[in-house]
């Protein structure tokens, strides 16, 4: 019979292992096409590229980027993508959204669109593209249950690749100011000795943090520093 102390110890070890995470590598890259004007609080709208173009950016990734951009020392003035899309209806719908900054002049020829664009106060549009995939993995885990006991034994692992990029359009200057890219590759592990203990590489969350930080830097200072980090 196990004592309370033994149970508490086992539980603590399990919790410590659960907060540990798998290994990952983060690569940030950026391309600046034109110098950015000084940021003075203009609105920024963040949207995922249309699914009509085959984009699969997860909506929770877009929400994560928006929340990150709204927080911290370099926080930006963010307008909700849904509100912008409604305000510009029907010109930023999945079927009609401009694919390229070169499509904007024709759109703005519509006086109603131009006037509404001014009303929203949006200067920068950030288009998100990319997604998280699980390209491979291996190992095996077996679980069994009997009268009064159950458990698993084995080891499994899998990779996650989070690859996202963001194109920043300057609507006032009618140009694509630049593009930023974040790639996070990670490996998650699942050792199981009686209970499975997932050591998850949170690649999507890390990609969100890294891309949002790059975007804040880029919009505020006109450039973002390429970097590679392992953690």
């Amino acid at each position, binding site marked *: 019979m196990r004592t309370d102390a033994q149970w508490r110890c086992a539980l603590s070890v399990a919790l410590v292992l659960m907060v540990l995470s798998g290994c990952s590598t983060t690569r940030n890259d950026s391309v600046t096409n034109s110098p950015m004007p000084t940021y003075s609080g203009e609105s920024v709208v963040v949207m995922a590229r249309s699914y009509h173009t085959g984009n699969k950016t997860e909506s929770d990734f877009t929400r994560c980027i928006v929340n990150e951009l709204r927080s911290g020392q370099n926080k930006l003035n963010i307008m909700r993508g849904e509100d912008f899309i409604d305000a510009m209806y029907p010109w930023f719908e999945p*079927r009609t959204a401009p694919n390229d900054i070169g499509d904007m002049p024709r759109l703005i020829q519509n006086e109603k669109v131009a006037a509404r664009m001014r009303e929203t106060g949006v200067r920068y549009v950030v288009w998100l593209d990319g997604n998280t995939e699980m390209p491979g993995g291996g190992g095996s885990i077996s679980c069994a249950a009997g009268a009064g006991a159950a458990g698993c034994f084995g080891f499994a692992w899998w990779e996650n690749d989070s690859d996202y990029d963001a194109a920043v359009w300057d609507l006032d200057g009618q140009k694509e100011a630049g593009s930023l890219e974040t790639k996070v590759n990670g490996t998650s592990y699942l050792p199981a000795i009686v209970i499975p203990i997932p050591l998850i590489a949170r690649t999507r969350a890390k990609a969100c943090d890294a891309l949002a930080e790059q975007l804040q830097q880029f919009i505020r200072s006109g450039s973002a520093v390429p970097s590679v980090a392992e953690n």
Partner: protein
Amino acid sequence: MTIFGRFVILATLTTVSGCGASIKLKNDPLPEALVEQWPLTVAVRYDETVRNFVHTEKLATNEKFQIDLGSASQQMFADTLGDMFAEVIEVTDGAPVPSVDLLIEPSVTALEFAIPSQTVTNDFAVWIKYAVKVYDTTGKLQADFPVPAYGKAASESMLGGNRAGLTAATRLALRDASTLLLTRFDVDAGMRGRQLPRRQNPTEESSDEN
């Protein structure tokens, strides 16, 4: 894919799409459309399928789905045509058509959907196909074109299950139909670059008769 991965995906798909769903759409108004309005008065006669449409389907897995558009299509057409034309007059079945520039008759011809266990993704997809007939001032059929609308929505949470995903995808399909009408009606209805026949006003008609 690992055994764990397969287990997680299987468990997710089972949870998300394991028990069918029945949804009824609300008549959510569309945003005001930023389009140039045609200076025309049009009449619209809604087919019964636009006023009330229910799609029921039983999958091979025995899951039963029902998508009740109710009058959401009618609301969509009313909002869309209201933004496109200066005046829109609704005409009921059997009632005489007033003197107008165009008569528009929309109907729903098909609805299809796909759930995550079919698409093997996390996405719900809905296709709604409308047919739109446009008659000119003389009552002659000027155009008859399809409006194939599509909506796709990811399952936001396992708790929402099929209902939330299907509702979101159906709403997006209705919005897509409106977008197609707003941006392509002139081409589809054969109105681009054409001088529209103007209806005679009642005084002209009476003077002709005299």
